[in-house]
């Protein structure tokens, strides 16, 4: 083995407690386990059946996010859960966390939020760690140079009981993005362009490391947007090497090392970056200068194109199953081949999800919508990623900006990203959404999703149809600097 190692290899090597053999996979130690209400109940049941305890409750944290309502609090300060089955599932998480001693950000508490927002927010997500959660967007945490990936509920049980996982070693892929983004083009557009290029299965079996000058110049929250959607390209994990931007973001957060520990930690984190001469199993490059705002037209995140492009024609697709897939997608979306998407009427705009619900996302959306109005007939929802993001946004006056524009300001949660909590599209409705999945029915049965950046979402909300963010931002940007 060459002594040059990638970021992935270094983290992997540090956590292997039993290396892979020809008969058995590796056993990997997990530093942090995030838990939510939807994928954990059966795992706790398994623990009970086997008479096991949670090995390390202090390396485990739970939150409620997927099925929680985002409607306003009642007079008693509580958020009402009207769905009895969801309420029972939430109650089960309360019980499980109490019984097994796991800290929980309960619905209604001031730190509750989307699982992939709260980890970084509390300073729990740190470089060089292994992080898992029963949720595919665990890849988000890779923005800090942590090996973070989604697992199934059986594995949730494994980690609860042993703090370890049985794992086959994945391959590595470098995705290099050099150059500079034009105004109106965001991190979301980078990742949508990447997925459109590699396809939704293109990263399967790989851990992606994002490199290049365009990635380096992104803020931590923008990096999270990128890593978040690694799974939409099929990769279980995405990584970005930690640097000064990373350290500054973590410094001072409640879970971060402090004092002498901090200096030691940073010195260690600096060692993590991929060595000169280390090689990847695959490589992809993109030029940021060439990117335009992106939007999806179909029913998976790989069906994306520049905002001013035209919907592809199934007749141009040679492979039969692929052609049928595209036909089906366009049929579901009610779109005509060869036509532009710009100007397509919309019903709903959703700003939220673990992809784009952090404070910087809300700031940029507020900046773009300030002094404007949501078009008549369009419903715009803004759902902060966590209660702390919500509080911060309110302190900065963002809530007033959104409400003055005619948008709804909601409590924190996954909301219309997954439509488990009553926030959903009606059949046939079109939404421009800052979330990460446009699968059939994802945002409500029969609902039709265009995935895009918060800026594209705002531009579309204002015009009432799919619109180009570059026209809007040019006009509005210089007037406000929070």
């Amino acid at each position, binding site marked *: 083995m060459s002594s040059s190692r990638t970021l992935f290899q270094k983290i992997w090597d540090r956590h292997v407690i039993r290396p892979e053999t020809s008969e058995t996979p590796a056993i990997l*130690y997990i530093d942090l386990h995030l838990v939510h209400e939807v994928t954990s109940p059966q795992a706790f049941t398994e623990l009970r059946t086997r008479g*096991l305890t949670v090995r390390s409750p202090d390396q485990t944290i739970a939150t409620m996010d997927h099925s929680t309502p985002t409607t306003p609090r009642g007079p008693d300060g509580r958020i009402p859960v009207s769905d009895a089955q969801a309420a029972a599932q939430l109650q089960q998480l309360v019980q499980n966390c109490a019984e097994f001693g796991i*800290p929980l950000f309960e619905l209604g508490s001031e730190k509750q939020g989307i699982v992939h927002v709260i980890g970084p927010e509390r300073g729990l997500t740190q470089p060089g760690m292994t992080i898992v959660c029963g*949720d595919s967007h665990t890849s988000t945490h890779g923005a800090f140079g942590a090996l973070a990936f989604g697992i199934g509920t*059986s594995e949730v049980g*494994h980690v609860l009981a042993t703090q370890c996982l049985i794992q086959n070693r994945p391959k590595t892929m470098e995705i290099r993005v050099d150059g500079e983004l034009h105004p109106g083009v965001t991190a979301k557009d980078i990742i949508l362009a990447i997925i459109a290029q590699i396809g939704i299965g293109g990263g*399967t079996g790989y851990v992606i490391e994002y490199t290049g000058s365009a990635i380096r110049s992104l803020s931590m929250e923008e990096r999270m947007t990128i890593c978040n959607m690694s799974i939409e390209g099929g990769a279980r994990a995405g990584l970005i090497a930690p640097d000064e931007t990373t350290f500054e973001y973590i410094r001072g957060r409640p879970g971060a090392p402090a004092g002498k520990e901090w200096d030691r930690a940073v010195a260690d984190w600096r060692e993590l970056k991929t060595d000169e001469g280390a090689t990847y199993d695959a490589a992809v490059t993109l030029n940021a200068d060439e990117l335009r705002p992106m939007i999806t037209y179909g029913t998976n995140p790989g069906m994306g194109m520049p905002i001013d492009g035209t919907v592809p024609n199934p007749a141009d697709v040679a492979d039969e199953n692929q052609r049928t*897939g595209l036909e089906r997608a366009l049929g579901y979306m009610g779109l005509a081949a060869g036509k532009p998407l710009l100007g397509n009427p919309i019903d709903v705009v959703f700003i939220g999800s673990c992809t784009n619900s952090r404070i910087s996302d809300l700031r940029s959306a507020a900046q773009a919508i300030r002094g404007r109005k949501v078009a008549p007939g369009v419903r715009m929802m803004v759902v902060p990623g966590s209660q702390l993001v919500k509080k911060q946004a309110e302190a900065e006056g963002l809530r007033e900006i959104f409400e003055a524009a005619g948008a709804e300001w909601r409590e924190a949660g996954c909301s219309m990203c997954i439509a*488990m909590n009553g926030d959903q599209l009606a059949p046939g409705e079109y939404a421009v959404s800052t979330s990460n999945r446009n699968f059939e029915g994802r945002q409500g049965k029969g609902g039709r999703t265009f995935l895009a950046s918060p800026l594209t979402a705002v531009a579309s909300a204002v015009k009432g149809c799919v619109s180009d963010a570059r026209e809007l931002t040019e006009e509005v940007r210089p007037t406000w600097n929070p």
Partner: protein
Amino acid sequence: MEPIESFTSRVVLLPAENVDTDQIIPARFLKVTDKTGLGDALFSDWRYNADGSPKADFVLNRPESMGAQVLFAGDNFGCGSSREHAPWALVGYGFRAVISTFFADIFRNNSLKNGLLPITVSPDVHQALQARLKNDLDAEVTIDLAEQALSLPDGGTVEFPIDPFAKHCLLNGVDQFAFLLGEEDAIREYEETHPPRVQTSKVA
């Protein structure tokens, strides 16, 4: 788990590509706290009308699909969400294997933990089998995990790859959870030299 033995079955033809786990089991069915009963919700949005009646033209509702234990799927089956409810629903319905050219990672992992065999075949084999199944609804395949062999309706047999550890567990009824618990000494040793990186109670 019961050891998996060789079995023969008719095949349900669903060759759509990129079938995501939101289609296999829509999110509104994820509010359950156990694993059972999800078979009825399998492919719910494709399978039922708004009033809950079965859609006559969906493959699972056709009489010839009844009792079939093998699903013939398109490329990149099981992409998207990590929900283990997807294999729970497939197994709950009665499927024991899915044949495709390519499976999404987490889905494949989850399936193997629930006795559902993800069988990867080459695009050529896939295409030929699809053509055969289209014209012969009674065609059967035989799946032999021990030999990693898929016997096709035309009499040919192809080998399919499978993770050796998962195969060992499935053939011998070995419990992966127990296997991991058996590593207690190695885990303790690791923890002795690697203090925890976080203390979650501190931030709650």
